[in-house]
């Protein structure tokens, strides 16, 4: 486990990161400042950003002091010079999840944030082009939410009547 970068906002909760060097749980207000601090500390690349919907799993383990919300945005940063990874998990909110965009810090998160918006409906404030990326434009709903059905069609093993 490594220490937080010197420029990090005060009061960020952390835990052991297992596969990453450290796992941070900033609040929404601390989020962009923390990522910026990591960038200045040598984490050159934002490798991954995704959303998670914890609707059916609210009992997850979090350090004390973190209020769990339904949606979470998970960011994985990578330092090429130090060969380390950090993970940042920010609680995004319950009904209308919204966090600030990382676009100004890492322009490479543009498509990943659009994907998180498309799949979970997480709004990224100040994102330059927050449109759907994978689903058709007029699609209703956000498919990876837990209350969205998988759309499974029952398989029929008998020939259905009808013109073909």
């Amino acid at each position, binding site marked *: 486990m490594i220490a937080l970068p010197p420029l990090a906002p005060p009061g960020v909760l952390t835990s052991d990161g*297992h596969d990453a060097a450290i796992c941070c749980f900033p609040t929404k207000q601390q989020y962009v400042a923390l990522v910026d601090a990591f960038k200045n500390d040598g984490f050159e690349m934002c490798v991954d950003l995704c959303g998670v919907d914890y609707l059916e799993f609210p009992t997850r383990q979090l350090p004390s002091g973190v209020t769990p919300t339904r949606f979470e945005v998970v960011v*994985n940063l990578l330092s*090429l010079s130090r060969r380390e990874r950090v993970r940042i998990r920010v609680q995004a909110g319950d009904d209308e999840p919204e966090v600030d965009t990382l676009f100004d810090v890492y*322009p490479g998160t543009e*498509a990943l944030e659009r994907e998180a918006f498309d799949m979970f409906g997480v709004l990224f404030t100040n994102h330059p082009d927050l449109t759907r990326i994978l*689903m*058709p434009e*007029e699609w209703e709903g956000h498919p990876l939410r837990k209350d969205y059905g998988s759309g499974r069609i029952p398989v029929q093993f008998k020939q259905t009547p009808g013109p073909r």
Partner: protein
Amino acid sequence: MIDDTVRVAERIDLLTAETSEGEQGLQSRASTSSGQLRREVGAVLRLDGKTLDPSSIDYEVRDDETMIINMGPAHPSTHGVLRLMLELDGEFVLRTKPVVGYLHTGMEKTGEELSYVQGGTNVTRMDYLSPVINELSYSMAVEKLLGIEVPERAVWIRMLMSELNRVCSHLVWMATNGMDLGASSMMIYGLRERELILAFFEKTAGLRMNLNYVRPGGVAADLADGWQDDVTVICDTIHDRTFDYDQLLTGQPLFRQRMVGVAPITAEEALALGLTGPLLRSTGVPWDLRRTMPYLAYDQVDFDVIVGTYGDNFDRYAIRLNEIRESIRIVRQCIEKMPSGDYRSQDPKVTPPPRARIGESMEALIHHFKLFTEGFQVPEGEVYSAVESPRGELGCYLVADGGAKPYRIHVRAPSFVNLQAIPLLMRGGTVSDAITVISTVDPVMGEVDR
């Protein structure tokens, strides 16, 4: 009486409305905000004025001077179903916007419905050119959560298969890249060499593609008898033939004119965009997870990380060609150093009993049945595991809730992130350069859209 002209015109409108993706596409400049325009022309990567001249942002270009054309999703050179909208000034590309999602398969949703045992069949179909490496990333994530050790022989088999898969993937890339540039013979040669490897895959795993061979706990089956000879033949043949490719392409003036110095990218831009794989290495950054953050047994084999200098198309080509040779080097070392032992973990939690015991023992039968119907339970937690795929860092982020199915499975697809470089690389080039850019970025749409 029906006026045919009117009807045909309406029909086109209707069809356009049906296939248009609205806001997702490239908009005219009049309806584009300045922030969005700055992003589309790459100004956000300016990074203190070093990498892109601020004056090159063409705010003064008017809509009636340019033309927005659509390329794809059913276009031969877009490697699948990538759709690009290009803003052209004559022959030159000003803005580009990739529109993706035409192969969106909902694999992350399906992955939540499949147990950990079945999950491999799902992830292997994401990047269909490197199925083994997809499975590897997923299996390593599950193993990290379970905390099980993989036997030494399984590690080396995984490494052998990954490297053969990397060769296979790069060969398809060489083939399609050749075809995009008009070198159709390369198409034939690339696919011919690939068949050698596919035949070995079929012999080992039973399938040519989408193997589901690497599974949590080890691999599905041991290597077939006499595999050393098969692999040696593959290595010798392909290694010799890479020099034919040199003659066919590398020194070819026509080929070089299309590749050398076209669409360069700098290391700063590549890092800011999160590019990995040959795109990042072509800018001179020696970042290869096999070397820098070793997994499997890559720290015990000898190989070189190929890096470029200029970040142009030719560097990306040369990196992939030489990675074929380096992978063959690793494969040869795998033949020499392959340890004996189990090919899968003997932990009964994840490994079914041997086939022979199922006929004799009731417990073994029940165990086998339960493992393949209910699956095994994975302790609560979250994990991110990354491997080096032929296209860059392939990560698998897994959230487990203690049940037999993943709570959330997210795959960090290198092609998806690398695709963001396309607008920057195409800017200022001609339409014919755009073709080479798509080709050398090497997106696999199955992985982009998942």
